């Protein structure tokens, strides 16, 4: 039986096999080929990032030029992108202007979102028992309180059995949480192996081949 494998699939399988073998077999030529392929991956990823930025700019530029709904936000985005790019291109990414933009625009904005998230999570936790009052909710609430109160002394007061390396908070964080995290990591590893094998066998083609 004659198999008809597209060229893209052949390339993907070949590259994957070479890179995979580089982990287990110490052959200088194979290591060189692996390194070259990895460098190509870096370049392609950087170009992809650049293409993404250009695509973002073009999409919002069309919205601005077409005067579509919420075009003002697109205008802000486009102007901010162009300004940041201009500052980085003219003065360098390490310049004070570029860092000023980063420190006084991007960091506060994202930090505010994280602070807002903290308040929302607290409020959701308050509303949780109103929505669903059952043993698991109570257990979840108790765990949250232990982890919060055990993370820092309560008004400067450490409670024995709760704070400290042998406290309840450390016990929860290092035993049940790590156990669950290990399971998650094992699952991630198995899923990665299965996905890699499927890609290497050509059964899964996320690249659209």
């Amino acid at each position, binding site marked *: 039986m004659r198999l008809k494998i597209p060229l893209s699939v052949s390339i993907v399988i070949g590259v994957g096999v070479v890179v995979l073998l580089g982990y287990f077999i110490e052959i200088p030529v194979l290591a060189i080929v692996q390194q070259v392929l990895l460098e190509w991956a870096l370049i392609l990823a950087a170009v992809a990032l650049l293409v993404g930025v250009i695509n973002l700019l073009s999409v919002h530029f069309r919205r601005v030029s077409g005067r579509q709904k919420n075009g003002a936000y697109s205008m802000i985005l486009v102007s901010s992108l162009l300004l940041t790019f201009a500052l980085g291109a003219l003065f360098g990414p390490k310049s004070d202007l570029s860092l000023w933009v980063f420190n006084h625009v991007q960091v506060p904005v994202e930090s505010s979102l994280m602070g807002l998230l903290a308040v929302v999570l607290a409020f959701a936790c308050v509303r949780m028992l109103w929505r669903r009052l059952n043993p698991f909710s109570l257990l979840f609430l108790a765990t949250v309180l232990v982890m919060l109160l055990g993370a820092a002394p309560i*008004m400067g007061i450490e409670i024995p059995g709760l704070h400290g390396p042998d406290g309840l908070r450390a016990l929860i964080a290092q035993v049940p949480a790590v156990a669950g*995290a290990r399971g998650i990591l094992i699952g991630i590893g198995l899923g990665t192996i299965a996905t890699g094998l499927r890609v290497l066998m050509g059964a899964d083609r996320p690249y659209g081949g």
Partner: protein
Amino acid sequence: MCGKPNPDDLDVCQYCEARLKPLIGPFEPADTHEPEERERSSVTDWLDSLREQEQGELFDAEAEFPEGDESAEDVSLQPEESYPGEPAEGDWLSKLLPERGSGEEAEASSASESPEWSAEEASQETSVPDWLSDLGKSIQEQEEEETFSEAEIEAFQDVDLWGMGELGEEEELGAEQDLEIGITSQEEIEPAEQLPKSGEEIPDWLQSFVESEPTTSAEPEEAAESEPGVAPDWLVELEETAGIETSSDDLEVESELEKIDWEALQTDQIDLKAGQETPTTLEDVPAVAPFALDEEEASLDIGEMPEWLAEADADDSEEQETPLEEIDASLTPGELPGWLEAMRPVEAAAPTAPFTEESDQEVESRGPLAGLRGVLPIEPEITQIKKPAAYAMKLQISDSERKHASLFEELISNEGVSAPIEKGFGISSQNVLRVVIFLLLLFAVGWPIYTGSQSVDLPLPSRETNQASRMIDNVMVSEPVLLAVDYEPGFSGEMDAASASIVDHLMIRGAYLAVVSSTPTGPAQAERLIKIVNNTAGHAYQYASQYSNFGYVPGGPAGLLSFAQAPRRVIRYGLDGEQVWEAAPLADVQTLADFAFVIVITDRPETARVWIEQVQPTLGDTNMILVVSAQAEPLVRPYYEGVPQQVNGMVIGLAGAAAYENGMPRTLLARKYWDAYSYGLTLAALFILAGSTFNSLSRVFAKRKNTFKDQK
């Protein structure tokens, strides 16, 4: 036809426009008077001879004389100019008559059955003029094989003279068929019955026709000279022979017609026509003379059947003669035995299917099934548009089934409707609550920072924190340390405080910092971190001389793997475009294992896992320290707890940094944030606890209230 006198030169009656001269007129030369006189004399002769016969048996002489008998010629008054066709007629007629009867009885019957005018016609043919005889000769020469005789043709012409006039071909064929019936019927019907019977009374024109009949066939001019209103002798004799009084009373004629045995006539006709080919054209139709049978028909007579067929016919006739009643009486009815009679399913065997009237079924009128009744119709019934039958749409179900159906319908309908959200009991407005929560947290966090309170003691360093601190303590001056800054700006509050003490410690130790990042915002974040530490701890770390920023390594895990295997190939230029590897601390660095250790600062467990899985295997004996967010601790700790350790030291969150600073000679951000962190977490925990308690109690009371209302 009206009987009124007309001039001789007229062909059509001036009164009724009936044709006075026959269509064969053109055969008669108008300018020759001698043949006319000769014919007239001959007609007169045979009329005279006819009158001489007292008994009216005109056909006796014709029947008696055999073929070639000269006596017959005398009787028939055969003229000398008789054309060759005449003997033929004499032959078939002479043959027919003896065959249809034997002996004198047959002769008598034939004589009695044959009309007088038939013999008269035969006699007329004897008086055919010369021109006609010549014509007959030529015809005979041309059609020698034709079995028709001139007498038959003449007879047909005579029939035409009887009143058919100018007929079309089809009409003539139809008329000839009628004539055939008439021919067969003439054997038993008196000549008077052959008179026109379309009218109820014989009109004048018919009367005149009857009077002129003897002369019109041969000499129309002479017939015109005859006295009108006087019946010819042959008609008188015919009437006498038939024994029927000639009268104009139509009722008497019809009564006599009713006496005719038509079935016998038809039987005779069938016998005569058996084996005769159907003529296709009028020319092919033989001009059969009345009461004349050709030789072929005569040969098909019963008398010539073979013996075996005659015997079989005789047997059949004998069987048929046996009365049916006698046969039935002779048969004994079948008797079934008793046991068989008992087993006979009379009722079951009785026909139960309704009788189908065949008359209701259609008879096929075309196609190969023509004539059959009740065959399948050509058009299927589906093509027949019918109004569909009306069926009741109401489902016949019981009450229990109806209840179950309604319950099932209710269950299905409820699935598509979202459950209404019950409003919280006792909460006036969620917005107010949100504002209150915000203000409380803001106060709890902002107030210690604003006041610089350090009332809360720092936690004791954990094992992983102590290991990280000891490794950093072992760093030599200008020893390269790879510092990976991979956290997002949103986590800057936590990660800056968590990593500031580490960076400060490194700066204290005088390590050369090689900053790299796998996130796009990492290089800027690293610059920000170094700047913060410099500003907070009072360092003056200079770029390129004390630290270098490799920038962003794209590609995620692949990029990190590539960077781990060949850092010089992946990173060649720094953030300012300088040759990073030309710096003195980095000159001897070929791989990541050449760094004193690798410190990864990240907020996401995925990034930490990538660094651990892709880079740590290439480090060799070089240690790896993780400074992670508190949310990443569960996923990172396994790498630290494992044996062998993939992560040699960790600083987790603000608490880890506070513990790290607790062992340092000076405090930085962790100490600054620790009171606010402590108050904020406590307040948040209390708020959650209080709110959850309140909501749970409200829910319980609400349910009880509803239950109490339901009980009422």
